[in-house]
C-alpha cells in the first residue's frame, strides 16, 4: 500500500505541520513503507477482541473537586515567546 504526495500534504495540513515541498516525496516513501508494515496486521483475525487502550485496563481515577494547584501566570508566561499585559500574543485573528 502506498501513500500519495497529496495524502501526505493532507495529513501535514491536519497536523498543522509545515513540511518542505522538496521533502514531500521522501515522506510519502517512508510512510508507504510504514503502511506496508501495518498491513501485516490484517493477517490476524481479531473479530470479537476488545481493543486495549491501557496496559492495566485501568480507568481514569476520580479525585475530590478541590483546588490543588495555583496558577502562577507570571512564572509560566516568562517562558512564552510573546506576552503583553498578561496575555499571550499571536498574529491578528479577526480583521
Amino acid at each position, binding site marked *: 500500500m502506498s*501513500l500519495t504526495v497529496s*495524502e*501526505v500534504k493532507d*495529513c*501535514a495540513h*491536519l*497536523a*498543522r*505541520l*509545515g*513540511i*518542505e515541498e522538496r*521533502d514531500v516525496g521522501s*515522506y510519502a516513501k*517512508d*510512510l508507504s*513503507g*510504514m503502511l506496508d*508494515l*501495518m*498491513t*501485516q*496486521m*490484517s*493477517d*490476524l483475525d*481479531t473479530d470479537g*477482541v*476488545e*481493543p*486495549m*487502550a*491501557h*496496559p*492495566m485496563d*485501568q480507568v*481514569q*481515577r476520580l*479525585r475530590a473537586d478541590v483546588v*490543588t494547584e495555583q496558577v*502562577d501566570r507570571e*512564572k*509560566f508566561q*516568562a*517562558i*512564552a*515567546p*510573546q506576552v503583553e499585559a498578561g496575555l*499571550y500574543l*499571536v*498574529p*491578528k*485573528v479577526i480583521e
Partner: protein
Amino acid sequence: MYNKTIAELAKGLRSGEFSSVELTSAFLDRIKQHRSLNAYITVTEDLALQQAKAADLRLATGEAELLTGIPMAQKDIFCTEGVKTSCGSKMLDNFIAPYNATVVAKFNDAGAVMLGKLNMDEFAMGSSNETSYYGSVKNPWDTHTVPGGSSGGSAAAVAARLAVCATGTDTGGSIRQPAALCGITGLKPTYGRVSRYGMIAYASSLDQGGPMTRSAEDSAIMLQTMAGFDDKDSTSVDLPVPDYRAGLSNSLEGLKIGLPKEFFGEGLNSDVAATIEAAIDECRKLGATVTEISMPSLKLAIPAYYVIAPAECSANLSRFDGVRFGYRCENPADLTDLYTRSRGEGFGKEVKRRILMGTYALSAGYYDAYYIKAQKIRRLISEDFKRALSEVDVMMGPVTPSTAFGIGEKIGNPIEMYLSDIYTIAINLAGVPAMSVPAGFAKGLPVGLQIIGNYFAEDKLLNIAHQYQQVTDWHLRIPKGFE
C-alpha cells in the same frame, strides 16, 4: 572513585573517605574530559556543587539517605525547574522548565546531586540517538557506533563513568536497547509504577521511566526512590512499593525461565545468540530450569506499535504550537502560519514522520482499520504475555538482534531502524517490566540479556540480575580509554 557502586559510595561519604563536593567535582572533570562523547546536553555545574554542599551538610547530621550526595544525571525528557529541558529538540531548545517532574523532585528529596541533562533522540523517537537536535552520542565501547536510543546519552554516560547512574525512559525499548548496546543495567518498570508527571510525553500509554545503572543493586536503589503512586499522574498505579533490595540475595533454585522461541529465530545475529545462550546456561547453574515457550502474536508487535505510538504522539505533540512556550517562527503571517511554521521548523524529520503517520492512522476512514485494529492486537499480545507468565516465572532472550551499529548506518532507512526494536516493543504494549543485563561481548561490543517478568515483579527481575552479577563480571567491565 568513579568505579564504585552507589552502596560503596554511600559508605565512603559516611566514613569521610571523600565528600560529595569532591565526588561531584571528580565527575564534573570527567564530563569535561570526555565531552566528545556528546552524552550531555546541559551540564549543571553550579547547581551540582550547590547540591553537593547541601548533601555534605545532610551527611554530617546523619539524616542522609543512600542517594544523598551521589552524582547522577537526568535524561533531558524530565522537567527540571529553572534548567533547560530540551527533550532533544529544537522545539524546546529555549524551554526552561517552570516545575520539576515528580521523579526529579524525588531525587532532590533524597539529596542526590544532578550533574546535568542527558542527550536523547528527539522527543524519545529513535533507536540510535541520531535524531537529537544536539547531534549523535558516541558509544564509549566504539566511538564509531551508536549508543542506542532513545536514552543514548544516559547509557553512554553511565558506561563511561560520567555519572554514577542516570534516569531513562522506555516507550518501545528506549531504556533496555541503549543499556544493552552500552553494556549497562537498564530496567523498564511496569507501566504505572513510576510517575510520568513532568516527563515529556511521547506515547502516554507506553511511556515509562526507569533506572540506568551499572549494577542490579544500584538499579534497586534508584527504583526505590523513583517508584510509587503519584496523584499528579492519572495513570499512576496505587500499590505499595516493596523493598527492592530485600530480595536481592534470594537463591534462583527452582526458578522457571521461559525462552520465547520467537526471540531466537531468523534475524538474530549468531554471536549475540551464542552470548545469550551462555548467559542462560549461567542461570541454569544457579538452579533455574529452562523451557521453550511460544508467543504467537509477537510478530505483529512492530506493526501495532507503529500505529499506536505515532497516534498518541500526534495527539501529545499538538501542544507545541509556538504560543505558550517553546520555539516560535519569525514573522508569522497569520495564526495558521504561526502554528505550521513553528512546528515545521521546530521538529526534526523523525518526529514529523511519526506525527504524519499518527495523523493518518487517526483520520476519518482509517481509524478502525489501523488504530482500533492495532489496539485489538495489543490485547492479543498482552494475553500472550499473561499466558506465558502463568507457566514460567520470567522470560529471557536477547534485547537486540545485533550489537551496536555504526553511526549513519541505519538513519537513512527508518523501517530498518524500527525493525531493530523487535525484542523490546511487545513488552511496552503488554505493560510488563523488563531488564537489560550485561551478558558479555560479541566481537568486542556489549550484549544485553533481557529478563521479562510479570506485572509489578521488578523485585524478581532485580533478584535474578543481581544473582547473575554475583557470578559474572560483565557489568564491571570498563570501555577502553575510560578506566
